[in-house]
């Protein structure tokens, strides 16, 4: 046995890897603090008393848990919650119902202009909402009188969402042709193929797209600001939260309590659906 079987671990190499280990973990701890502390401070401030929140104190003394209840009962909060839920749930369902057939056609049908259609989908993905907002607002308010409601936000979701279509289509491309051909030989119509072959095989993508759309609606500020600001009964959480801050200008404790109540559902759903979510995000990078 010679010394050539394994490289000798000189003390300097050991030191170097020890230093690397320390540096790595120091960075990790610093990063964790940066990402977690904002949440922690929001929670701590949310349960402070009115006077204490004006000071620079970091630890509540005493813990006023009641703030959370008070904020919930504040005029409108429950309404905002309900509106946001309606917007997010209905919007997500409509998006999926309309985007899946489109993605299916773009992935599995052969037709002239398929590439152009794909490029058009991508182009609409890149369109800033502010470009289209003014004519759309004019139509919704003058021709339909639907401003001050959630309809201008929800109805467009029945016509497919470019990002969802894109992601679903990329995933559907991975369904092996043989399955499709076999089903066709068995006499299935295109619709049946979609329902019985393709959808079951792309379930993770559907879940991911559904979650993305849900969070997009939940977190949307610009849409509700434009269409619902004139009618507080239609406000969503994002817009309501900002107006709450204006109303409770110096009461940071209450504002943080409201902020917590707005952030919490999203974080909770995330923790429950983590795997689906993160896989979906990774998909956008790999398949995009």
């Amino acid at each position, binding site marked *: 046995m010679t010394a050539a079987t394994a490289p000798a671990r000189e003390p300097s190499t050991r030191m170097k890897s020890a230093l690397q280990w320390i540096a790595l973990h120091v960075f990790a701890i610093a990063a964790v603090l940066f990402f977690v502390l904002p949440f922690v401070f929001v929670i701590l401030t949310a349960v402070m008393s009115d006077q204490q929140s004006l000071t620079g104190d970091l630890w509540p003394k005493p813990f006023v848990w009641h703030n959370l209840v008070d904020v919930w009962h504040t005029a409108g909060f429950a309404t905002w919650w309900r509106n946001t839920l309606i917007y997010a749930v209905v919007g997500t369902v409509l998006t999926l119902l309309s985007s899946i057939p489109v993605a299916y056609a773009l992935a599995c049908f052969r037709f002239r202009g398929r590439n152009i259609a794909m490029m058009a989908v991508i182009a609409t993905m*890149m369109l800033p909402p502010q470009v289209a907002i003014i004519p759309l607002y004019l139509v919704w308010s003058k021709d339909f009188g639907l401003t001050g409601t959630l309809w201008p936000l929800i109805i467009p979701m029945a016509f497919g969402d470019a990002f969802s279509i894109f992601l679903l289509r990329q995933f559907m491309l991975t369904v092996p042709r043989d399955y499709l051909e076999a089903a066709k030989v068995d006499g299935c119509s295109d619709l049946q193929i979609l329902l019985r072959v393709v959808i079951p095989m792309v379930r993770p993508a559907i879940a991911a797209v559904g979650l993305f759309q849900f969070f997009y609606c939940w977190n949307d500020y610009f849409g509700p600001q*434009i269409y619902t600001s004139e009618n507080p009964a239609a406000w969503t959480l994002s817009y309501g939260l900002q107006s709450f801050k204006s109303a409770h*200008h110096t009461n940071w404790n209450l504002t943080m309590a409201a902020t917590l109540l707005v952030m919490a559902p999203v974080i909770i759903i995330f923790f429950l659906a983590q795997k689906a979510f993160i896989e979906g995000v990774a998909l956008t*990078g790999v398949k*995009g």
Partner: protein
Amino acid sequence: MGQWRRRTRASPALRARRRRETLRTVAFLSPWLIGTGLFFIYPLITTAWLSFSHYDGFNSPTWVGLTNWHYVFTAYPFFWPAMRNTLWFVVVLVTARVITGLALGMLVLKIKRGSTLLRTLFYAPFLAPPVAGTLAFVFLLNPGTGAVNQLFAKLGLPQPGWFTSPAWSKPALTLLALWGVGDLMVIFMASLLDVPRELYEAAELDGAGAVNRFRHVTLPHLRPIIGFAVITGVIATMQYYTQPLVAGQVASGQIGGSGQQVEPGYPDGSTLTLPQLVYNLGFQRFDIGSACVVAMVLFVFSMVFAAFLMRRRSGFMGED
């Protein structure tokens, strides 16, 4: 024997089938076709047309040619600050996010124990509603009583004005954006995992240190995904609206809402972005023509970058 093709007319059955297939394709595509017409093409044409008109939302629009364009580019006081800010954000935000996302991705992959927990913790803030996150950061970076400045004071460091200081407001927004870098981190992690292990081993055997391994093995493999992240980041940053708007309003203590004059881009126009101008011109000043001018500028920039994206990603379309 020469092979020359003759244009034969397809049989009626074949033509019927082709017609059926076209119908079927259109049927499946119909939601999107209608949607694109209603919510993309129609607004685009109307916005372009309105940019050449004087329209206050009440009286009929009247054609005024390039008047609005001239106004926005020369007389509207907020346009060029917003352009400069948007450029600042595009350069700084995108770069910082890409570098941080990559660094965090590599960090999480290196730390084997608890990596799932780390990944969750780093990703979670990305989901926080932008308004909520902005409020949290404005609170934390409060110059007087915020936790960050208190810590700085204890350490004897200078305490920046953050969201109340024209010089620090954009860096403060950058911190907020970095807090939400989780989505990029996850995308980079997926790509990092794709790099074949053997390449690293070969490089190590050749005596390459960590830095060289990164430069010659990791980076080349990540180039496409970094390109993708940069371009989509630029496009997203052109639409940067909610965080700067809310931060400016909250930090200034002014109340927003349609028709009320709020100092845009508090402090001193340092947080103004192009999308905010559309709102300011259209919904607060009721100068719809000029709002559409800004909207067209936004559109042109976005499509230029979208074209970049499509050219780089030749494999975008997928197998045919």
